[in-house]
């Protein structure tokens, strides 16, 4: 028996998971249209559309090209016609639209040519590039591009942690995936293990999922895996947080400002391992994912859903009850309210919970903080949530950062236990995004300062160069004059050459005059070439046009005279 560790705090909210695990994963029906968001990964880098409205696309065809380092590709989930590339509602808490590709399926579900390969025969850099171009991102909800996490660089990764904890209430997509596709998950984990040169793979699954644990153990015993272990971990929320699970399995405590990679551990969701396997062994990009549809529906269950399927069409397949008043994406602890049911499913969407007043009654009105510090007792990141709350409320962002605001994983355990029902996490989110905005502004200001200083320096340099050039010219002129003086003196004595010789202004005048003469001579020499060998008819036409022009000139002149 492996020794397990504990992390600080944690809560035990009602799990509500059994509702959606009664039936196997169902294939969601092909929707009437797919609204595929182009920005489906964490990080600011854009994904550029690679198709235009009217294009015909095949299933698995690239429709979004990753640009920048932290970016991931997006693919057509089925074959059909691109209807539009424009801003559509997306699953984002802001309710603001973002760039999406809308595809009308043709019903044929025709694959683009694709082939799998054996990961052992591929270079690791090629393998990572393949994952990037297959659009593989973390499917636990953070959607960070996996190819970047699968590069250990100079760090030695000892433990690869596969996260099947799925601690948040209602969500069962990882549970069902492990029950039904355990072997593929393990094959994916094997590829990840090779990429990271990890010594061991620890698969952590919370002990409220005995079927998933059994299925994974069975698959593990059936294959020839190296240093892999399926471990049941105690059920406590948020035991599925990356840092928390690493702590439980390995005892590593990740300090502030240090990444888990530096400590020799890396964590991936089981769904990510599955899609890594599909991408490498079958050449299939990430175009679908398992989504739990639960809450206020007739048949809560898991679906394999094509990315971009509008939420309304997906929810209808689970039988939405009439008193549903909205949806939550994710779980009840960390999820966000879905702004529009027309938005398409994204790689981050692990669960949709239909809400109603009966199921999720509005939060009771908040009372003032009584400083009971129950939030500090449950905080899995060992923070002082009550202090962070006061700082965020007073907009003392610097202070909040000093109290390690950015170590907060927004798990919502503090809000869950708060006897005053204060929406604590909302304050932390507010403070975080405020700090990010300040940082963006600061970066922009630094760039502006640099550019302004460069411009001033450039202007200064140009001035200097001009002055130098002028000085050089003057020196040259003075030297020429000095050389000319004796000659001119001699010339003046010898003959009565143009009196101008001695006078520089007259010399310049003479030069200008000469230039004008030259130009005139040239003008008379150069004649338009298209007036040679003309027929009499053409000549007559030219004469007519010339006459007309003369007439117009005459009129214009008389008009001018009149005006004057």
């Amino acid at each position: 028996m492996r020794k397990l560790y504990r992390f600080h705090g944690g809560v035990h909210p009602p799990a509500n998971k059994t509702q959606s695990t009664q039936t196997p994963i169902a294939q969601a029906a092909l929707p009437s249209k797919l609204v595929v968001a182009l920005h489906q990964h964490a990080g600011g880098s854009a994904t550029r559309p690679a198709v235009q409205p009217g294009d015909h696309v095949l299933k698995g065809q690239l429709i979004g090209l990753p640009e920048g380092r932290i970016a991931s590709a997006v693919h057509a989930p089925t074959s059909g016609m691109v209807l539009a590339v424009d801003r559509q509602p997306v699953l984002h808490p802001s309710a603001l639209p973002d760039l999406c590709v809308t595809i009308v399926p043709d019903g044929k579900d025709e694959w683009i040519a694709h082939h799998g390969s054996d990961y052992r025969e591929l270079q690791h850099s090629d393998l990572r590039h393949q994952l990037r171009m297959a659009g593989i991102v973390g499917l636990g909800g953070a959607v960070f591009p996996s190819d970047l996490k699968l590069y250990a660089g100079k760090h030695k990764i000892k433990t690869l942690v596969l996260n099947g904890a799925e601690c948040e209430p209602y969500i069962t997509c990882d549970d069902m995936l492990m029950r039904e596709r355990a072997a593929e998950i393990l094959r994916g984990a094997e590829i990840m293990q090779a990429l990271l040169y990890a010594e061991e793979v620890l698969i952590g699954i919370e002990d409220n999922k005995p079927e998933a644990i059994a299925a994974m153990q069975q698959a593990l015993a059936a294959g020839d895996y190296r240093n892999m272990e399926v471990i049941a971990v105690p059920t406590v929320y948020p035991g599925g947080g990356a840092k928390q699970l690493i702590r439980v399995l390995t005892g590593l405590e990740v300090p502030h400002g240090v990444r888990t990679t530096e400590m020799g551990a890396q964590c991936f969701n089981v769904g990510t391992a599955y899609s890594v396997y599909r991408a490498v062994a079958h050449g299939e990009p990430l175009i679908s994912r398992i989504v739990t549809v639960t809450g206020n529906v007739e048949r809560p269950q898991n679906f394999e859903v094509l990315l971009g399927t509008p939420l309304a069409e997906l929810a209808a397949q689970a039988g939405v009850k009439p008193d549903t008043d909205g949806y939550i994406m994710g779980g009840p602890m960390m999820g966000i309210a879905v702004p529009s049911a027309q938005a398409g499913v994204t790689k981050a969407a692990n669960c949709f919970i239909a809400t109603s007043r009966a199921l999720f009654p509005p939060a009771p009105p908040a009372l003032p903080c009584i400083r009971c510090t129950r939030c500090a007792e449950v905080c899995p990141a060992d923070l002082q949530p009550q202090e962070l709350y006061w700082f965020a409320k007073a907009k003392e962002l610097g202070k909040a950062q000093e109290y390690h605001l950015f170590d907060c994983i927004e798990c919502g355990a503090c809000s869950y236990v708060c006897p005053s029902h204060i929406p604590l996490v909302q304050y932390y989110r507010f403070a975080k995004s405020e700090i990010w905005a300040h940082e963006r502004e600061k970066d922009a200001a630094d760039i502006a300062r640099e550019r302004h200083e460069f411009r001033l320096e450039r202007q200064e340099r140009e001035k200097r160069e001009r002055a130098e050039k002028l000085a050089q010219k003057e020196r040259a002129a003075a030297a020429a004059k000095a050389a000319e003086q004796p000659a001119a003196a001699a010339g003046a004595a010898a003959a009565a050459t143009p009196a101008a010789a001695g006078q520089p202004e007259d010399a310049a005048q003479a030069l200008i005059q000469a230039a004008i003469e030259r130009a005139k001579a040239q003008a008379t020499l150069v004649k338009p070439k298209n007036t040679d060998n003309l027929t009499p008819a053409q000549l007559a036409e030219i004469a007519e046009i010339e006459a007309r022009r003369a007439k117009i000139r005459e009129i214009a002149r008389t008009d001018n005279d009149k005006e004057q």
Partner: protein
Amino acid sequence: MLTALFVMTSIAVVLGAVLGYSALKFKVEGNPLVDKIDAMLPQTQCGQCGYPGCKPYATAIAAGEADINKCPPGGEEGIHKLAELLGVEFKPFGEGVQPKPKSVAFIDENTCIGCTLCLQACPVDAISGAAKQMHTIIAAECTGCELCVPPCPVDCIDMIPIAEDVNNWKWRYPVYTLAQTS
């Protein structure tokens, strides 16, 4: 008596020498206060403060020649920060001076005649173009200072406020009602 006098004098000479040496050795180049103030200014380089850029304004504040409420792009928050740094009272903006929403200049490329006047006005070289060639704003580098707007002879430059999108959106300050307990 004489010994005491000698000891005190030699101590004074030694300490004086140390001080004199360190004054030369650890001399601070430039004015650190100016740099601190400059770091707080938004670097729009718009000249709305009456000085030709953020650095000159920072220098003027450091010298006590300028008020701290002359920078509309910095907003009231900027004044608060400056007040805190300098240990003076917060001073609101004067009459008619109000911060505008952050904007980016936009050149109507059909109207632009390629006169290069805006190029010369831009303090951060955020306009690309050449004589008799159409000009365009490099939006990512534009500080929204509006200095390019007045020189344009054909009025083809507009200031477009930066719209909120998914990338620059911020979580709102939570507003909720407290329960009545009495």
